[in-house]
């Protein structure tokens, strides 16, 4: 793993990001998140994304629990969960997940249970894909950090600039 060069890792990360943007999985809001990360808040993106994962999985569980219930009728409650999911997805730039939420909400407003179930399946799929890709991204980022640390272990002795 450490044999990978910094350049190669950076290229991998950029390639993955480009792919995700191209696929519409992420939008420019994700870039905003990255811009907000700096020395004073070096883990900002992963912190926000981890909160998002935690929240999303709870919401998905709630949505599924509502829909599998044969007596289900609380579309209003489902709508509230969806609005929350939509909002947080939008805030981190999870464009495709957000778009599925929009379609899901439309089915919800029509009290269309079958449509909601289909939308939920799609939502779970998109969320899974997003989560996997973001994990991949963070892994590359971690490797970059490690590779960067190994690169500068000890100051070298230089004839013109001796260091004690």
């Amino acid at each position, binding site marked *: 793993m450490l044999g990978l060069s910094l350049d190669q890792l950076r290229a991998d990360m950029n390639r993955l990001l480009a792919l995700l943007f191209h696929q519409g999985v992420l939008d420019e809001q994700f870039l905003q998140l990255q811009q907000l990360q700096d020395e004073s808040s070096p883990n*900002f993106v992963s912190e926000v994304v981890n909160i998002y994962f935690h929240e999303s999985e709870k919401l998905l569980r709630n949505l599924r629990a509502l829909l599998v219930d044969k007596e289900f009728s609380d579309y209003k409650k489902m709508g509230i969960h969806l609005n929350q999911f939509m909002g947080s997805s939008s*805030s981190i730039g999870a464009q495709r997940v957000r778009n599925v939420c929009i379609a899901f909400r439309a089915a919800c407003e029509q009290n269309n249970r079958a449509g909601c179930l289909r939308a939920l399946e799609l939502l779970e799929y998109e969320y899974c894909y997003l989560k996997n890709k973001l994990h991949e991204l963070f892994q590359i980022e971690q490797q970059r950090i490690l590779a960067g640390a190994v690169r500068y272990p000890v100051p070298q002795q230089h004839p013109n600039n001796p260091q004690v």
Partner: protein
Amino acid sequence: MGMAAAEAQFHVLAVDDSVIDRKLIERLLKTSSYQVTTVDSGSKALEVLGWHEGNPDEAFLSPRNHQEVEVNLVITDYCMPGMTGYDLLKKMKESSILRDIPVVIMSSENVPSRINRCLEEGAEEFFLKPVRLSDVSKLKPHLMKSKCKENQKPENQENEESEESIEEAKAETETETEIQSQQQQTAQSNNNNNNKRKSMDEGLSQDRTRPRYNNGLTVMSN
């Protein structure tokens, strides 16, 4: 008045029931060198502001007769369980202590009637979520204005007069015109409220390009 130094002193109270959005707005504000307090509800916001139920005026506030901590601007989500951002705005405007604190509303939904209602109730700005750094940069004029106000008499409706002239709304940065219009206080608010409603209805786009509502007079798209 040292501008750079003044910025670090501004304290913004951010209200949002979403954990993620609180984290985001906090980072956005801190990046812009503001001091930030975040709360997850309108009622907690009122606590921080020192407001007490049934006694919106001076009498029942803390012995200092002011807010618990000094807040220079409140930025709040619209859609929250219990007290909405609009309810919070209304309560603040009804309080003689809190009405001078500029309020900005955020919402993920582009609902013209909602935006209109908030601006007419006295919100300074309405931001569509997700909020960006470019939005946060629009807070400064409102913060500067409220600093000026502390040195002037509170009787003039200084919160509202900046909404009057259409020229201001056309300018991307309205700092100078706002300070000027404070001195041109007129009784035009009623008429201009109607104008605001019209221009809002005419100018709105349905898609998610990000219209900006500067005091409701024109829509500026990015």
